[in-house]
């Protein structure tokens, strides 16, 4: 279970928060003109990386404020938490623990099937 450092309330148990999925998703401009496919991508498709992931959380059972978070989905390590109006941290400022797209990190995964 995660300990999440709410930028307004400080570190709290994950059960106080709700996950809001991928952060920085932009609604496409000119929605009247774009095709079904592009619109469908905006509605249904979200990033799902094994590794560095930008996501949103809301402190539902606390201050009820939204904020952004960078988490490594291969280890669940929270790398950075920033307010909703702050700039998105650059991807290359984080270390990627996964060498191949579906590879396992050295530490932090419950999957022992491919560990040497």
């Amino acid at each position, binding site marked *: 279970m995660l300990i999440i450092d709410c930028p307004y309330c400080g570190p709290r148990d994950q059960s106080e928060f*709700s996950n809001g999925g991928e952060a920085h998703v932009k609604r496409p401009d000119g929605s009247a003109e774009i095709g079904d496919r592009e619109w469908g991508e905006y509605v*249904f498709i979200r990033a799902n990386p094994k590794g560095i*992931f930008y996501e949103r959380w809301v402190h539902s059972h606390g201050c009820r404020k939204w904020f952004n978070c960078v988490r490594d*989905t291969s280890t669940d390590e929270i790398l950075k938490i920033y307010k909703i109006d702050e700039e998105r941290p650059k991807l290359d400022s984080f270390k990627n623990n996964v060498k191949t797209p579906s590879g396992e990190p050295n530490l932090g995964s419950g999957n022992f099937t491919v560990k040497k």
Partner: protein
Amino acid sequence: MKKKYSIFSIAKNALKGHKDWPKMWRSPEPREFYDVIIIGGGGHGLGTAYYLAKEHGLKNIAVIEKGWLGGGNTGRNTTIIRSNYLWDDSAHLYEHSLKLWENLSTELNYNVMFSQRGVMNLAHNEHDIKEIKRRVSANNLNGIDSLWLSKEEIQKKVPIMNTDNLRYPVLGASYQPRGGTARHDAVAWGFAMRADEMGVDIIQNCEAHQIKTKNGKIEGVETSKGFIRANKVGVVASGHTGVLAETAGIRLPLQSKPLQALVSEPIKPIIDTVVMSSAVHAYVSQSDKGELVIGAGTDSYNSFTQRGGFNIIEETVRAMVELYPVFGKMKMLRQWGGIVDICPDASPIISKCDVEGLFFNCGWGTGGFKATPGSANVFAHTIAKNQAHQINSAFNLDRFASGKLVDEHGAAAVAH
């Protein structure tokens, strides 16, 4: 050599101390080229290879697997099999699968221990009652055995259940008598053995690194054992399907999350059916060894850690103890998490895509095990014929542009 199992072969090998059983499949090195490569050696992938060889006459097939056969979600699930889905498209798909289950041990000459002990889905409130009764009616219209049980009928079947003295009382349930459980490992092993006999190369410890395409056509797969060319590639990698699709520049509407389950210490037979409750989120059956197999939920956030948060277990155990006070002092033996790929409409994708020769069978989310033979069967058809079988035609990728979703959140049992 065709391996036949019978009471005589067991007796013969028992006398020899079980030392002479033949290997169930070869462990070949990959060839340079295959007609079809299946990425993912779980039940769905091995089944696909089996049906490709058996029903479509393809011989030059490989299944590549990152770890060992059935070591992913096939070996990590709660093995519940049912077909009581709401919409026609899903009902046909899961019923197709259930019919194949009913004959699978005979067909593979390998005991998958399919046990039709019935599956119950509990209703805890007014809305549940309406929703479940609607589903029972829809099932009956599709020729699927499904009936409504009153509280008294539930108590008769499962006397240990606390139906009244709890926060969300049990008000009734749907019941599918033909539903049940199967031995998950045996499904993977049975398919693997029979596919191997027909010449399918099953290559373990071979991780797919990149799906290579050229001018909108499939070229092959870059793996940890080198590049393998192929005419067609089928990706059946459950939680990792999304990241593999990404290597070919394809974005799929999938989110990967851990789904947890836990198993208790073995006890004497106490529950002889499968009881599921999506409202309080606990489902349970008893394995042949006597362990209670308990299904928990998914975490709310994306993760590939195959572990899951402790709060999910707490919630499930809380519901279990309320529903079955008699389990209050039991010890849990182990807990695990598998990564499931969840689609926005809680229905799978069994489809070709923009790249010629590239196929996906994914998005099974929290309930793919029950579909193993059916999914494999129609996916093999889709790969061999380059077009969907009638049964899986609704489960295409285009539905996320057309909006023709197959919304099965109600029947999916695990809320997400």
